[in-house]
């Protein structure tokens, strides 16, 4: 599994973030909080941006080499195909967990400062919602990424998932009055995790057959 971690590290290095990532994160968080304090609606926009960042960052390793992914490079390195797949998942889920966690921290701080605007429970749900969104966004397109790489088909699936999830979340929030939100939410998160876990064998299978 050490090799999978190395693959995840390689993926991370395709992001080419100039400044230390934690400094960047910290700076962004401060800006968000300040803006939110001044105008709450900004917060919703910020959440939207976070959703966008979390989903697109994960794709970078797959088009970082002139629309080709790092998989060509990895083929020349001492790692097996299984390790590559695990490494990609590790990277994607890892990055998104960090983003979701960060969102939660910011939301929690804001909630602490303005508990009426944003109760802590809602802050938690927003962060969890982001994580769920991200997990589905890895679970569904990844097998296709593994199968055909970064192509229009993959992008299509990717966009499709985003649309579906957004519709789904709206649907759920409408439905939310009938069920206890945390109960529904619990199922949704569990579903996302199951989807993610289920997508791994498919990715492994398709990637093992892939021609690079």
């Amino acid at each position, binding site marked *: 599994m050490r090799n999978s971690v190395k693959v995840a590290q390689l993926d991370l*290095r395709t992001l*080419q973030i100039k400044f230390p990532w934690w400094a960047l994160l910290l700076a962004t968080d401060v800006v968000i909080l300040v803006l939110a304090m001044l105008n709450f609606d900004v917060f919703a926009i910020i959440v939207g941006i976070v959703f966008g960042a979390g989903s697109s960052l994960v794709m970078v390793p797959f088009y970082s080499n002139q629309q*080709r992914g790092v998989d060509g490079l990895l083929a020349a390195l001492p790692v097996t*195909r299984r390790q590559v797949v695990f490494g990609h998942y590790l990277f994607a889920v890892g990055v998104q967990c960090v983003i979701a966690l960060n969102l939660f921290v910011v939301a929690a701080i804001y909630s602490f400062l303005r508990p009426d605007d944003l109760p802590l429970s809602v802050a938690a749900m927003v962060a969890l919602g982001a994580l769920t969104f991200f997990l589905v966004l890895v679970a569904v397109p990844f097998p296709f990424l593994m199968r055909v790489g970064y192509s229009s088909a993959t992008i299509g699936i990717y966009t499709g998932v985003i649309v579906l999830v957004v519709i789904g979340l709206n649907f759920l929030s409408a439905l939310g009055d009938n069920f206890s939100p945390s109960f529904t939410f619990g199922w949704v998160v569990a579903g996302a995790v199951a989807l993610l876990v289920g997508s791994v064998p498919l990715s492994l299978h398709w990637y093992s057959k892939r021609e690079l």
Partner: protein
Amino acid sequence: MADLLTVKDLTKKYQEFTLGPLSFNVPAGYILGMIGPNGAGKTTTLRLLLDMAAPTAGTVTLNGDTTPTARALARADVGVALDTTGFPESWRVADVDSAMALFLPNWDAARFHELIQLFGVAKKTAYKKLSRGTQAKVNLAAALSHDAKLVILDEPAAGLDPIARDQLMTLLQAYIEDGQHSVILSSHITGDLARIADYVLYIVGGHQLFFGETATLLDRYVLVKGGRGKLTPELKKLGLGLRETAVGFSLMMRTEAARNLPAGLTIEPVDLDALMIYYGKEVQADAQ
């Protein structure tokens, strides 16, 4: 000397194209040149050796490993520079260095920087901003910097100016000098590289036309030239790739067949370029 690579009946079937069966081997301490026209299957062959695609039939034994998984784990002992193994667009030389160091236990950073310097690559420029030739140099430098027993290069001379090509030849010969390392390279630029290739694998349309010592292939054919009047029907039958002009003709022929030719014809040895040109003409003529 043991073989670093043994290939037996390697075959890959695609819908419109079949590669193989190919059978060849590379002993330690030698250079194998792969030649053939575009689309002949040279790159596909290299990809099969690297398990980037799975063969339909046949076996590959590389550095002693016979299965894709074993080969994958031992890949630190193979140096690779293909079109598709390039680096992420945003990376600079230092990023390549640290990434390779992460994966390759024998990574020699000093050697890498030495080669980068030798090739004159701008260290601070992002990979995507480098010219194709310079990108190729970076790939090459990386492939040669971890003491890999076998180095596999796809068209390394493409996009290189004559000076860089000369540097490349010198580097490759130095690389095999200790008799423990070997190089496989595919190339169109047969001139320079043909002289240093000990063995040659000649592929046309997916078929293996020849594998063996370069000298053997070159000894097998001669070029026959003469004035227009000298071109007889028998000559035409014996020869390949006939080229007729207003001032004369030339064709390629098996050396034995050229032993009893009438006087007045010029007979010359072939080089790899001529071989590919005349053979290519013959294949074209057949197709028409």
